[in-house]
């Protein structure tokens, strides 16, 4: 009896399991199961807040106005029109894009160089890899404060400059917008080159070896192999690395916040810092929401063009 029962249950479970496995193996179900968690997560997390952001961007509301947010007066496109006319916004935008180009460009070149440098086996490789990856593991507060202290007027960098080039050589790094931005870019490059390195290094590692060997036997130079064999195969991964890094660098906040606080005046303010001031310090939540929506649209359009070639590039056979 007991045996019979168990057997039956097992058979049923087996059947059921088999049925589930069969359904799960169907092409259509397989796809759905694969993307369902992502869809659920994004919709669950984003849809309500996005609606609230859109709502906020078309009303005129600050918490200190003494009205509840769902009773705020409508402003329609007023906030958007204000953003378009906001000089501080466009300046911050241009500045941020400049930082992105400079920082991401340097990070890509350095990251690729390092990834090539560390290919293959050699003594102490794991140690060097660990060292190179370390900067992005530090909390941003610490990266910020270390660079802030290093380039302080009476900090170590100026001290060394003073010793080498005489007492008049030390430079007021944070007193001029360009040099202050330079320090910020430097800190960003220091902190995030490891990311480029990480992706490109693992990307290089995943490349098939045969084409390279074939090229080598055909007598191609190392440069030719790199340029005409490895680089094209690496392209999808390069795109991903550059796009991801550029999106993150565009939101640069931490380093600016600690190193210059956007000063002198607003001359080193990044777009994120400006939005932070607007929403968290001035409490202009509606205006900040409109600005965020506009930024999202602009960045989305830019990114769309940036990832286009990647889609065409798909499945190189």
């Amino acid at each position, binding site marked *: 009896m007991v045996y019979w029962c168990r057997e039956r249950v097992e058979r049923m479970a087996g059947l059921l399991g088999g049925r589930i496995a069969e359904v799960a193996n169907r092409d259509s179900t397989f796809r759905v199961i694969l*993307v369902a968690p992502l869809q659920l997560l994004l919709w669950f997390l984003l849809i309500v807040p996005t609606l609230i952001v859109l709502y906020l961007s078309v009303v005129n509301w600050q918490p200190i106005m003494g009205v509840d947010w769902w009773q705020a007066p409508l402003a329609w496109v007023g906030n958007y029109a204000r953003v378009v006319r906001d000089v501080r916004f466009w300046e911050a935008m241009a500045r941020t894009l400049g930082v992105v180009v400079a920082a991401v460009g340097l990070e890509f070149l350095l990251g690729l160089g390092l990834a090539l*440098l560390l290919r293959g086996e050699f003594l102490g490789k794991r140690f060097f890899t660990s060292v190179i990856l370390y900067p992005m593991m530090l909390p941003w507060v610490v990266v910020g404060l270390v660079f802030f202290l290093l380039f302080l007027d009476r900090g170590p960098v100026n001290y060394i400059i003073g010793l080498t080039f005489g007492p008049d050589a030390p430079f007021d790094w944070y007193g001029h917008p360009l040099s202050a931005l330079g320090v910020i870019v430097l800190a960003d490059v220091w902190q995030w080159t490891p990311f480029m390195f990480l992706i490109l290094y693992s990307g290089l590692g995943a490349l098939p070896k045969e084409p390279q060997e074939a090229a080598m036997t055909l007598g191609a130079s190392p440069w030719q192999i790199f340029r005409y064999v490895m680089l094209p195969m690496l392209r999808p991964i390069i795109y991903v690395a550059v796009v991801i890094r550029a*999106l993150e660098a565009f939101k640069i906040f931490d380093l600016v916040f600690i190193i210059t606080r956007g000063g002198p005046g607003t001359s080193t303010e990044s777009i994120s810092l400006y939005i932070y001031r607007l929403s968290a310090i001035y409490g202009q939540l509606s205006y900040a929401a409109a600005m965020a929506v506009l930024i999202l649209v602009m960045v989305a359009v830019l990114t769309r063009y940036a990832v286009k070639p990647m889609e065409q590039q798909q499945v190189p056979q």
Partner: protein
Amino acid sequence: MRGLLPLVRWVAAVAVAAVVLMPVVWAVSISFKPPAEWAAHPPRLVPEEPTLANYQVLFQVGNPVGVVAEMTRTAEPVTRAFITSLIVAPLATAASVAIGFFAAYAVSRYQVGGPMLPFLALTTRMFPPVAFAVPLLVYYRMLGLIDTRLGLALMYTGFTVAFPLWMIKGFIDSVPRHVEEAAILDGASRWRVLFTITLPLVKGGVAAALLFVFILNWTEFLFALIFTSRHAITLPVQVSYYAGAVGRFYGPQAALGIVASLPVVIAGYVIQRHLVRGFTFGLVK
């Protein structure tokens, strides 16, 4: 030339490591300095009066001296924040990479959701998150998730999932399809193919995504600050506690930064050897 190459490479690696380590060395040096030396002029690399006080205040062991001790005597030890971080960051990382991996496969192989789906995921990274803080806060209040570890982990998963999706998609794109098709013709189920053929081939990408997402979750500050008040404080928030109104506590901040980076270093070291075992490993089968 051939014999010289390894040497050149080794010298270059040492030089790079030195440059990379310089700011780290400075942070370590600050973490062993008493307050008077944190921003001293002329700067000294080796502390004049080295002290462990900055580390002691973190865990409230011993009796550190001076103003730092006075100010932080009643501080919460970092233990609780450490535990929260050790729960939230790995949980969110695992969830994010798992979800991202599946979706990446679906997108790469079946173009599920068209080009818009990965793009939609990426939009979560396209605007300054601070603009999203208040609406999310209102929403989280409705869900009762404010100041909970689950809420934080959920949010971290949602806001990092774009990275594994895109990073791993890049890797899957470069895996030739015929490898999988052959296995399916042999009668393997799609799931089996996914886990035994594709996953090993893109292991490097998965490892890179794991490490990167873990770092992001481990060091995230803004959401942790906004969505916690007491129970779910994470390490980066705790780091910010050592910025008192009587002088920023560079010493304890640097010390905590270094302590906080240790789990990531360990994770990085473990993951490292998986970074480059992609293609060759998989093809042996």
